[in-house]
């Protein structure tokens, strides 16, 4: 299913982002809400990874805690047969996966998740207010990703740069995640 929407003139539904109007962060860790993105939860067996990678235009990583990016798409390893694929804007991910012709499950989760971008020298410390993972560059280098916990909610964490992370979170948990990140960001600036 492509999330472009037919042209319905003035009646076309407008989009309301879950974290619209949220702002926060500190001098050490900036918090921004990510623009809308297309996302699929992709499931497939090992033998079909190649075909799906080709069809999606991004190599599905097979190593735990890694991601790969190409052509505006990022594929995050979440499990031995599970990936979160994120595309900027409307990337036609469902159709692309379908075009692979191999056995897989793709579920559109573009609206299930939203994302918070955390950046700055205290980004890791801000996230460590609620995330028990080792976010040192050695253990969690740029490109590393993990489905993990943040306080009382689940997040998918992706390191996009040495001092920048993308926090993917289910929409109804996003204001909690944002609130906890605000406190973490403040504490990271002390």
């Amino acid at each position: 299913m492509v999330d472009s929407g037919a042209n319905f003139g003035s009646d076309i539904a407008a989009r309301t982002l879950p974290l619209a109007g949220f702002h926060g962060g500190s001098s050490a860790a900036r918090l921004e809400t990510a623009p809308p993105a297309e996302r699929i939860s992709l499931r497939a067996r090992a033998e079909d990874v190649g075909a799906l990678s080709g069809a999606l235009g991004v190599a599905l990583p097979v190593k735990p805690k890694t991601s790969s990016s190409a052509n505006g798409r990022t594929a995050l390893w979440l499990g031995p047969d599970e990936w979160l694929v994120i595309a900027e804007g409307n990337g036609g991910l469902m159709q692309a996966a379908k075009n692979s012709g191999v056995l897989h499950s793709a579920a559109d989760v573009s609206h299930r998740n939203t994302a918070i971008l955390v950046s700055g020298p205290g980004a890791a410390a801000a996230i460590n207010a609620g995330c028990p993972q080792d976010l040192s560059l050695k253990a969690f280098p740029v490109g590393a990703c993990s489905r993990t916990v943040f306080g009382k909610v689940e997040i998918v964490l992706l390191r996009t740069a040495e001092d920048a992370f993308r926090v993917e979170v289910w929409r109804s948990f996003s204001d909690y995640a944002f609130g906890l990140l605000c406190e973490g960001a403040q504490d990271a600036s002390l």
Partner: protein
Amino acid sequence: MSASSNSGAFRIKGAGRLTPARTARFTFDGKSFTALEGDTVASALLAHGVHLLGRSFKYHRPRGILSAGPEEPNALIDVSRDAARRQPNVRATVQEVFDGAKIVSQNRWPSLKFDVGAINNLFSPFFAAGFYYKTFMWPREAWVKVYEPFIRRAAGLGVAPTEEDPDHYANRYAHCDVLIAGAGVAGLTAALSAAATGASVFLVDEQPEVGGALHYDAATMIDGQNGYDWAQASAAKLKAMPNVTVLTRTTVFGYYNHGFLGLVERVTDHVAKPDKSSPRERLWQVRAKKVVLATGSIERHMVFANNDRPGIMLASAARTFLNHHGVAVGRNVGVYTAHDSAYEAAFDLRRAGVSIAAIVDNRADPSEALLAEARALGISVLSGHSVTDTGGRLRISSMTVARNGGGNARRIAVDALIISAGWTPSVHLFSQSRGKLRFDDVNQRFLPDIYAQDCVSIGGCNGTDDLAELIDEAIAAGGGSVALSGENRFEWTGGMIGAAEGAGPDTTVKAFVDFQHDVTAKDIRLAVREGMHSIEHIKRFTTNGMASDQGKLSNMHGLAIAAEMLDRPIPKVGLTTFRAPYTPVTYGTLVGHSRGELFDPARKTPMHVLETAEGAEFEDVGNWKRAWYYPKRGEDMLAAVNRECRTVREVAGVFNGSTLGKIEVVGPDAAQFLNLLYTNAWDSLKPGKSRYGIMTREDGFVYDDGVVGRLAEDRFHVTTTTGGAPRVLHHMEDYLQTEFPHLRVWLTSTTEQWAVIAVQGPKAREIIQPFVEGVDLSNEAFPHMSVSECSVMGVPARLFRVSFTGELGFELNVPADYGPAVWKAIWERAESMGACLYGTETMHVLRAEKGYIIVGQDTDGTVTPDDAGLGWAVSSKKLDFVGIRGLKRPDLVRENRKQLVGLLTKDPALVLEEGGQIVADPNQAKPMTMLGHVTSAYWSENCGRSIALALVAGGRSRIGETLYVPLKDRTIEVEVTDMVFFDKQGGRIHG
């Protein structure tokens, strides 16, 4: 002796490390005092000659300051910054003075100097160990009215604050290669060594500055430098390294599995005007690859008669107050010791101009080096002597000294008495790590023996007394190499555990072992005489070591006295296990960020703001906030729900169903998988159709229900109850991975992908028609239980023809971000047509009118599909599904099981209470035979009467019978009916 009159008459010029010009004002019990920055409340009060700080827990005896550190059992105070920022039971020896601090003593009334509770001291023979166990046994009723209120009033020390804590607390997870607990000589050396290897290092110390024993031990030189100065320089060097984190004022309070440690950092408790953005305390949860324990050792007190008077304190404490804070603990100080270390305290005091009345050493032959130094300083040493008693009321004024083994006692006037029975290695964290201790017979101490984790103990806590050896051990523990030399004045020997001369088994004196819980040597002996032979029993009988200090001073003494009574070696009597936390941790620290809005996530649907704007009242369903009902001006809940119920059936209603659990089941074996997970059949369901499904557990009981739509051969849209969504997905995933791994199918939670707008009622079709594209909504083309992918307001949607009201109904699933816009448009049209918004309460009533169950309300985990009247949903053709064998169990197929039926009260205006018990004969003797209970009960505006659902034994065979619901004040007569109260023919759903 010259003293600064400003910061206290006992402040010694030139002594200590505090800066005389930097002062802070505080009050103690309303009286104002001046302290120096860096003072603890204890050192500041001692500087003013104040020794009396509180009353003891049980006997209300006057108590002073025993130690200079976190082991303090006595000097517990109430510290406040303002009305809301107040903390009871703070150790005066840990709390740093800040300008404006309000300190109040505890456990006394009306005043510290005159305390009514001190009468307990006179009655102390009645309050012996085990008093509570023996006294409050009978009569039974007295517990509630007399004993418990009495004990509750007497129990507990300090008064908990009543106002909400205005401070905030932070939490930080961290990882490191090496965590070093304790920054004395050993810890610092290990840190320097570890840091040199490039490892990531956490160096943690509970005191405001690093240095550990160097705070008091002014004689030790490291690398030719004063030890304390070397420590500060080393810390500065470590702090400058990018791989090292130095945390002071931070206590490692817990050592858990796999190198996981809990640390509490006190961030603002010492600051006069804390920055608002600073947390009061920060919890560090650290995972360390390796842990180095350099926690040192704690000096023990001597156990002798009346050893608890204010002015009696540990020798090392007196030395800390002198060498660090520049405070003399008295002008004429007595010394009572069984260990060399007290001599050095006496020497330091003497050199600072304090008179030493005498050193009473209960050992016969102290070392010649110490005796020579004492002679040189003009201090008389009474070796082979003991202090057998003390005098004084609110402060010690004399000590009674006698030669061991009998002899004339004489009183010596003193204004302070410093004591030492030797040193107890701080093995608390080692013990918490599940390490096993061994008993060092020679030195009478427990030492680390068998390690359970990647951990090493060094220095004092490892029994390493020699400084050069300690440095070598620390360098090795750090794993790197540094060159260091150390030098101290005297080698320390000696020590004793247990009661000293004059406090033995044949005496009745009060020789305190545990100061905080007022446990004496006599109490421990009594426990043994009463038959307690295990230290675990003795501990609980006497409460020795069970106060907030966890017996840091008392455990070894208590153990030795018990061992002596039992005539067994100490290791045979055993040692109680040390538990986290090492020192008390505030609730605030443990709660951290989890308060207010961050206490628990409040899950809101995409339409939450719009619902709020329409005046919705919300109810919590799991973590979700669901619109409960929409009262109009002047309406109460019942009026609103009645209106909503009527309007839905007469016109239509719009309902937010977004919280419904949704699982996308995809793969060629999807139908086969659902066949195995649900009781009914799915392979026969055609794409474009949906079906109501029941899920049972292995035991055959109903687990969840919901409508499942087939979108394509290989794609199902499963819905679950709101509360059941996470566990149903886990249940499915569990079976998929463990029982049916051969199936080619995958599960994805899509609950939050879709905003769900239900439109129910006769005008539902008319309302949604203009917004829907790509599907013919006519009854013929899109009958009840149809599903279609289509477009709603230009966005891709999934449309279900489904009803939980018994009316013509649709559920529109649109991508969540579009939910508000679609909701707004639909509601605008619906409202213009006379429809209403309705909430979960109306949904509950409408479904009950139709006899639709709610899993978890009308079922309780012991209800089979057949019990719930859903036997039709269990396939008789399928060979396997989860629960198929469970459903064949004899108990699940027997007669007279509880079955779900309808109940109608004989008085139609009466609404039953959910949970009400049902009986056949209300006049039978109690306890009555219960036939079942009411599961749902409502006023039904559409039926013009009350309705109810109930689980009743043999319910379906009782239809037509009259049963009773006995309540406290009346009995309600009911008639058993079927479960459908409205539109029994069910025609409306196909409208």
